[in-house]
């Protein structure tokens, strides 16, 4: 079974800086790491590989600036077998539509050059964009079924790499859990509850150091230039701004807990909050 995980290197800090020209995040000089949600995607991919066994393998894929290669090496250290880096100025400023298109083109290329892909796993969203659009978007381009907010992979039946099978997943809904079955190939986006990511092994670290990671630009992907980067994005960030931060309010006074409780309830009622 060939499992592919889509990951993103994102700022590891809350110190957000905005490029005044493009209105997007300034990524230079920011501490970066694998998007926290993608850690669960990597771990789940490796667990499924171990579960299914045989010739199963995991590929990691990212689109990002040159330094995003570090995230791919981290992914290899955590159990991925190989990694691919979509990299080029032409991809900059992509919205989720153009990003999912680009990842789709890369997935097609990996399927052709390595082996057909049975399952794509994404994190539920990134910590910088917060959209959750990429998993379902990639699935739409691939014309594969998808389920997002997956908290458990109950069962995987793979007939063999690229030969199909089924996967049964648990989806976290507002009021409970949906259990769904999909034919492979399929796409899932996973939430934190699904697993506890492992720490890199020594063997993994060695593999990460040595791995050769192909870098692909738009021409290598055969991507339509009107569909990538800022120019190919249906949506743009017209403006970014920091929301006004709440500054301290009222300190509830009182000498005993009872007095404080009384004063708090009175304040909340005065302000029509309760």
């Amino acid at each position, binding site marked *: 079974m060939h499992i592919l995980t889509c990951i993103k290197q994102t*700022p590891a800090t809350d110190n*957000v800086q*905005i490029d005044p020209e493009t*209105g997007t995040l300034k990524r230079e000089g920011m501490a970066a790491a694998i998007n*926290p949600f993608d850690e669960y995607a990597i771990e789940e991919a490796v667990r499924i590989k171990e579960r299914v066994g045989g010739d199963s393998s995991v590929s990691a894929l990212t689109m990002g600036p040159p330094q995003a290669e570090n995230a791919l090496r981290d992914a290899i250290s955590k159990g991925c077998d190989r990694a691919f880096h979509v990299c080029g100025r032409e991809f900059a400023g992509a919205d*989720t*539509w153009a990003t999912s298109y680009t990842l789709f083109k890369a997935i097609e290329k990996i399927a052709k050059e390595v082996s057909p892909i049975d399952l794509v796993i994404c994190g539920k969203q990134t*910590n910088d964009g*917060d959209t*959750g*659009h990429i998993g*379902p*978007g990639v*699935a*739409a*381009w691939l*014309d594969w079924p*998808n*389920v*997002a*907010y997956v908290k458990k992979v109950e069962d995987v039946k793979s007939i063999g790499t690229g030969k199909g099978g089924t996967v049964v997943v648990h*989806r*976290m*809904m*507002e*009021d409970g*859990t*949906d*259990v*769904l*079955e999909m034919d492979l190939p*399929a796409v899932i986006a996973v939430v*934190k*509850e699904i697993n506890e990511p492992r720490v890199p092994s020594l063997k993994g670290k060695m593999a990460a150091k040595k791995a050769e990671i192909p870098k692909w630009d738009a021409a290598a992907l055969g991507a*339509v230039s009107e*569909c990538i980067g800022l120019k190919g994005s*249906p*949506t*743009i*960030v*017209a403006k*970014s*701004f920091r*929301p006004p*931060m*709440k*500054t*301290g*309010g*009222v*300190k*509830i006074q009182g000498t005993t*807990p009872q007095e*404080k*409780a009384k004063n*708090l*309830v009175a304040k*909340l009622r005065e302000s029509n*909050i*309760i």
Partner: protein
Amino acid sequence: MSSEQAILSIPRDTENHKGIWVFAEVSHGKLQTTAYELLHVGGGLAKELNEPLSVVLMGHNITSLGQDLIDHGADKVYVMDHEKLGQFVDELYANVIVELIIKEKPNKFLLPASTLGRSFGSRVAVLANTGITADATELSINKEKGNLLNAIRPSFGGTLMATILCIRGHRPEMATIRPMAFPQAQKQSGRKGEIVTVPVDPSKYKQRERHLRFEADEKNEIDIQQASTIISGGYGLGGPEGFDPIRKLAKTLGAAVGASRKAVDAGWIPYRHQVGLTGRTVRPKLYIAVGISGQIQHLAGMNSSETIVAINQDPEAPMMKLATFSVEGDLFQLLPAIQTELEKIGYKPTAN
């Protein structure tokens, strides 16, 4: 034709796309209140553009909900009623909706930023060859730019707000809208509107996703993303039993129970209660943070709450500085005291 060719062959057309659409989510046969919120905000946009407001209603045995949506401001309700739509299955839901979009050509299409909306919204957008904004909290019409939709959304966990525009002529402009960000539309009984039954034939589409079963959560538990009041506990609770007075107070207040990452990681309460960057984002009217210091990771999930009450022993905790009302003291004394106070005044929660 490959899926890529099929998507890219959908023309960009700004002339013939008219009307505001909103998606009415039905969960286990019950209409979700996000439908009324979308009717409220969608109604405002429709009025400003002088275009009709339509609802897309999907599910099974749901036709009777149509008039209620009209009473809440819909001019037209597209009803797609089929056994196979009785449960949310991304693939079929997306295919059915995309076909309707291509046929009826709406101008703007709003969905709830619920699990359902956020799961299949972007699948719909890609298949309909259009742009989508995630989790918008404010909407307006951009008069200078040909009546485009200004979709304003928090990103980076709410530390940054961004105005998103769908500027390259893709239609409909789509957005998912954060639950509770807008008030609900008022009901005007007997309003006139049109109910359009859209035939659904699932056998036309690939069906590679099947809903096997639904496992409901423990009863009487309000979900944090649907609550107007949330009371959350953090590491300061000291253990799982710290949630006992919180649950009790939540019941009195008609509130949902939330938690910080540390409390969840310690195994005191399940993950679905986690508020914050790696948990869920909430925007209730009242957020009560008990024993939560207020790390950025938690603040990112709740700092847009209307009113924040912090209860903590440490007056210097970031949450205490941020809160609308801060109460310093021992939570095991304060929570029962608040409980008693509410009981004394005979407090009854209003409907959530």
